[in-house]
């Protein structure tokens, strides 16, 4: 089954899953209120968005300069920077480090780039023990599932389901208490932290000016990942660059506000390199892997390159009525929701993934929510245009060519209305069945009749 058929099949099932819908709506029920309260604490949220978009525009348009600056600064403190053009190269770079260190176990804090290159599979295939240490990621890893949401990986699960999972996988006692569930995970994870050979992180931002990466988190797990193992690897997309340290004063609060309705994420840490002489902790070795994986192709697209502004806050998913109805896994992509529907065709092939651009009512809630002003729903329209221009379907080509004739010839349109009026009693006989030409509408909805007197009939008579 191809990606589009799988998507249609899963979307149909999920759209009718009322239990799932209830869980997601409950999970997001406080989000918009909290976000709006935090937005109000900005002097001007709109100006903040504009400034953020401009900073990202500058970063992306001078990526060549900023990446080199970032690399020079961070290498000066002893970090090794690796450049990976493809997912396969990134995996190989990381596997080579693992082999050099003769590592047996890896502890990993949340990183969507690692999901993008399917790093865990590669590491496990090479015989390593890999443990996710973000609570949500830990839960979905135990379920052998991909993250459901780019910020809230296990938001689709109830406490009861998590408790059952922990009982089964960790041998814990049943509990419905969120704190106790967290403690169960914490006890399991602490042991892993202490014995891991390598820590892997992602990054939220990479600061060119100072050669540092910024990681924001709510659990402190990324800090432990960076502090305990002797070797640390950070995998980040090249678009994570911000020009100046001062940009974080804007980006940290807008990320927290847009993503989770928080004033700031609980822990905001800057990493500048491996342990320096005289320092008491930190890794002995630090590798930064800069990942392209088709990002430069998107960068070359002048019309849509602002999709690389994305700071992965998840705001567009949180407000998307499609996401809330079909759920994160249905997309079948690393990045779900509106931003995923925009970038996946660029990252993984337009024809294979164009169906995601059609799975939108173009309501624009995503564009309104985006803190860096990516015109998400217009990009979906552009994806549709590019896909149709490259490979029009016969059915749509004939359909729209006929439509042009109908729309440009009022007499033909008048005839069509008369024809519909004559045939609609027949259509009623098969209404809502597969024989009904309007099946995709009438399966769940009534269709109004063509009016006995249309507006144009009335207008002509009146004149």
């Amino acid at each position, binding site marked *: 089954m191809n990606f589009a058929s799988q998507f*249609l099949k899963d*979307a*149909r099932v999920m*759209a*009718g899953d009322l239990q799932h*819908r209830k869980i997601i709506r409950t999970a997001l029920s406080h989000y918009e209120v909290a976000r709006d309260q935090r937005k109000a604490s900005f002097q001007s949220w709109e100006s903040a968005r504009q400034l953020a978009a401009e900073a990202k525009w500058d970063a992306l348009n001078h990526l060549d300069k900023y990446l080199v600056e970032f690399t020079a600064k961070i290498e000066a403190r002893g970090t090794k920077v690796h450049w990976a053009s493809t997912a396969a190269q990134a995996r190989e770079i990381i596997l080579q480090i693992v082999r050099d260190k003769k590592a047996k176990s890896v502890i990993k804090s949340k990183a969507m780039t690692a999901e993008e290159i399917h790093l865990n599979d590669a590491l496990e295939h090479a015989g390593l023990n890999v443990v996710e240490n973000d609570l949500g990621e830990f839960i979905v890893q135990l379920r052998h599932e991909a993250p459901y949401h780019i910020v809230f990986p296990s938001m689709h699960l109830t406490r009861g389901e998590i408790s059952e999972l922990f009982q089964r996988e960790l041998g814990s006692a049943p509990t419905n208490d969120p704190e106790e569930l967290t403690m169960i995970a914490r006890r399991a994870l602490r042991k892993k932290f202490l014995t891991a050979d390598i820590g892997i992180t992602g990054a939220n931002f990479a600061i060119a000016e100072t050669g540092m990466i910024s990681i924001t988190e709510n659990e402190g797990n990324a800090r432990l990942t960076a502090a305990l193992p002797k070797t640390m690897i950070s995998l980040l997309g090249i678009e994570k660059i911000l020009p100046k340290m001062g940009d974080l004063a804007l980006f940290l609060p807008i990320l927290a506000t847009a993503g989770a309705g928080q004033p700031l994420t609980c822990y905001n840490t800057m990493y500048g390199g491996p342990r320096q002489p005289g320092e008491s902790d930190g890794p002995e070795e630090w590798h930064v892997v800069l990942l392209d994986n088709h990002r430069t192709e998107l960068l070359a697209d002048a019309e849509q390159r602002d999709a690389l502004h994305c700071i992965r806050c998840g705001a567009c998913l949180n407000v998307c*009525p*499609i996401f809330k*109805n*079909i759920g994160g896994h249905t997309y079948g992509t690393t990045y779900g929701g509106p931003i995923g529907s925009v970038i996946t065709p660029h990252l993984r092939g337009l024809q294979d993934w164009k169906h995601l651009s*059609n*799975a*939108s*009512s*173009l*309501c*624009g*809630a995503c*564009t*309104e929510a985006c803190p860096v002003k990516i015109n998400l729903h217009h990009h979906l*329209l552009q*994806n*549709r*245009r*590019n*896909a*149709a*221009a490259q490979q029009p379907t016969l059915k*749509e*080509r004939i359909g*729209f*060519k006929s*439509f*042009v004739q*109908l*729309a*440009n010839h*009022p007499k033909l*349109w008048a005839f069509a*209305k008369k024809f*519909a009026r004559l045939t609609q009693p027949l259509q009623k006989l098969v209404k809502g069945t597969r024989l009904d030409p309007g099946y*995709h*509408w009438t*399966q*769940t*909805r*009534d*269709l*109004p*009749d*063509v*009016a006995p*007197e*249309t*507006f*144009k*009939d*009335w*207008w*002509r008579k009146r004149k």
Partner: protein
Amino acid sequence: MTVTLFIPCFMDALFPRAGICMVEILERLGHKVVCPEEIVCCGQPPFNSGYWDEARAVAAKVLQQLQNAEVIVIGSGSCGAMLNNFYPELFKDTPQSELAKQISARTWEFSEFLVKKLGVTDLGATFPHKVTFHDGCHGLRELGVKKSPRELLGHVRGLQLVEMAEVETCCGFGGTFATKLPMISTAMGDLKCANAIETGADYIVSNDSSCLMHLQGLLSRQGSKLKTIHLAEVLNQQ
């Protein structure tokens, strides 16, 4: 002034009352209304499906028909957004680029035209019912229409306006989306209907008949008593 009324294809064929009410309201306010009979559709279906050449073929005829219009009024946020926002993009770098921008600047969504251009908020209407207003997404987010319809409804005698929960969430129509992904569209529509029913209103009022066609279709199928009605029809109830 002479107002050129743009009647969308679905309004012409399925919801002529809304168009007739707009004509009557504008004439009562002392304006001359013209309605180019050559215009059938704004071209949105092929545009939203990615078939921009076909959309341009339809839109070019609209531009030609409207080139001398003083102001253009549309009783649909969605078709309004097409003329206002998407025509300039569709005709970018073509000989009609300038005309598309001019037409865009002269085009008004119906409620915005009444309130912002004409400064009229009280049309002397009476509609003794409890209603809830549905914001079509194109009107709301592409054109920024939010207050005008509510101001107009606020002056209707006997009318009680109750806002529904999640009022700015899409109803799930989305043009071709409604038939390309009917089950997602239906799920979204069910939620919208549930929120509207929750208010206890007799009517869902909107400035977009296309959303209402979808919602009315769901409500009728479910046997609900809640009805849908275009804003112009409410404002024309004397």
